[in-house]
C-alpha cells in the first residue's frame, strides 16, 4: 500500500503553547486511522494541519505527493482532502443538494446538472434522499452531519479527515453517523478520524494512535492498543474513558 499522508517532525505552536510536538507518522492508502487522546492533546490540530486550516511551524507534511505549505499546491491538496467538522459547518443559505454539489462545480468544474446527480446519489447513500430540497436548519444534528459527510465525499477525495464528527450530537444520533463512517471505511477510502468513540475505534480502525500533550505517544492495531496498552498515560486515559 502506498503512503498517502506523511508527517515528519511536525510542530505547531499557538503563542507559547505547543499544540503539536515533533509528530511523525505515515498513513497508507485505504487505511482507517483513528486518533485518540485527551482534550487539548493536539488531535484536532493534527488533522487541521494536514489540509492547512492551521499552518504548522516546523517539520514536513506531504499529502498524495503534494507538500502542505506550498501555496501553489494548496488547492490540489484541499481538493483531494475532504473534511467533516464537529459542528457540521453546513452552509445555512444553501439547500442540502447545493451544499453537496457546490464544490464539485466550483473546484472540479462539473456542470450543475452532473454535480447535482452526484450529490443525489451520495445523499441517497447516507440515507437522506428524502431531504435534498431542505435547508440545513430543518434537519436534525445526525442528518446534518450525514450531509457533511456527503459534501466531503462529493469531491471524490483520496483522503477524508473527521474532526470529532459525533461530539456535538445528541447521544441517540451518534449511531447513525458512525454507521455511515463504518460503511465508508469498508469502501477503501483513506480516513483519519479524531474521535472519543472508543467502540468505533476498536471496530473500524486499522490502526489507532494515542496523543498526549501534542506528542504521539503510542500507536498500533486497536487490539494491541486497547487490550495491552504500554504507556501509563494511555492506560490512564483508557481507564477514564472506557465504560466501567
Amino acid at each position, binding site marked *: 500500500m502506498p503512503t498517502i499522508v506523511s508527517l515528519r517532525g511536525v510542530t505547531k505552536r499557538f503563542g507559547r503553547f505547543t499544540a503539536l510536538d515533533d509528530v511523525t507518522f505515515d498513513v497508507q492508502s485505504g487505511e482507517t486511522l483513528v486518533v485518540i487522546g485527551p482534550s487539548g492533546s493536539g488531535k484536532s490540530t493534527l488533522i487541521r494541519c494536514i*489540509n492547512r*486550516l492551521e499552518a504548522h511551524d516546523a517539520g514536513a507534511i506531504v499529502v498524495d505527493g503534494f507538500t502542505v505549505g506550498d501555496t501553489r499546491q494548496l*488547492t490540489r491538496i*484541499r*481538493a483531494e*482532502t*475532504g*473534511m467533516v*467538522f464537529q*459542528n457540521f*459547518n*453546513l*452552509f*445555512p*443559505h444553501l439547500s442540502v443538494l447545493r451544499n453537496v454539489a*457546490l*464544490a464539485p462545480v*466550483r*473546484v472540479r468544474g462539473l456542470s450543475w446538472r452532473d454535480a447535482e446527480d452526484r450529490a443525489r446519489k451520495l445523499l441517497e447513500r447516507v440515507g437522506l434522499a428524502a431531504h435534498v430540497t431542505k435547508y440545513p436548519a430543518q434537519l436534525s444534528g445526525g442528518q446534518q452531519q450525514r450531509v457533511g459527510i456527503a*459534501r466531503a465525499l462529493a*469531491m471524490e477525495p483520496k483522503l477524508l479527515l473527521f474532526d470529532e464528527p459525533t461530539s456535538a450530537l445528541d447521544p441517540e444520533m451518534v449511531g447513525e453517523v458512525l454507521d455511515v463512517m463504518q460503511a465508508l471505511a469498508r469502501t477503501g477510502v483513506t480516513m483519519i478520524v479524531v474521535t472519543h468513540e472508543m467502540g468505533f475505534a476498536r471496530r473500524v480502525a486499522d490502526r489507532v494512535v494515542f496523543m498526549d500533550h501534542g506528542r504521539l505517544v503510542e500507536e498500533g492495531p486497536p487490539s494491541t492498543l486497547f487490550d495491552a496498552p504500554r504507556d501509563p498515560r494511555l492506560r490512564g486515559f483508557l481507564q477514564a474513558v472506557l465504560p466501567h
Partner: protein
Amino acid sequence: MSVFDTFLNWPVFIEALPMLLRGLGITLGLGLTAIGLGLAGGLVLVLLRLYGGRLLGPLAVAYIDVFRSVPVLVLLIVIYYALPFVGLRLSPFWAATSALSLVSAAYSAEILRAGIEGVPRGQFEAARALGLNAVRQMTDIILPQAIKLVIPPLTSNAINVMKDTALASVVAMPDLLKQATQAQALAANPTPLIGAAVIYVLMLLPFVRGVGLLEARLNRRGR
C-alpha cells in the same frame, strides 16, 4: 392669518406640487445613484481592508476613517467649489453624487465588515477545506450570509444617504428641498416647505419602520 393660510395653504400646495414632484424625481435619482455607488465602493473597501495585506489594508482603513470624519456638507462644498481650481469641474448632480457616495462607501464598508466578521469561522473553514478559491469563498459562502446579517444597518445607511441628498440644494441642484424653497419664494408662503418635509417623511417612514421590524425579527430568531 390663520395657521392654515400660512403653513398648510392648500391652493399654494397644489400650485407648487409639480415643482415638488420634479424635485422629488431628482432627489430619488441622486439618492439611489449614491446608495448604489456607495454600496459598491463599500464592498471594495471592506475586501481591501480585510484581505488587502499590509499595503492596501491600511490605505482602506485610512480612507474609511477620514470619510467617516468629514461632514458631507463640507465635502460637497469642497468638491463643487474647490476642485474647479485644479481643473475638475463637476455638475451639481455629480458633485452631490460623489460627495454622498464617497461618504456612504466608508459607512457601508464598516457595516459590511461587521457582517463578514459575524459569519461563523466554521463557514470560512468549510469553504477553504472544500478547496474553494478566495473569490468563490466570498461570493458563494460568506457574502450571502453577511449581507443577510447587515440588511437592517445597510437600510439605515441608505435612509441617511437619502436624507443627505437635501444638502445638494446648496450647490444649486434642483432637488426636492431646492424646489420647495423656490416655490416658497414664488408664492411668498412657506406651505411648499411643509409639503417637502411631508414628502420626505412619507418616502422614508416605511423604510424606517421596516428596519425596526426586520431587526426585531432577526433578534427573535437569535441571529
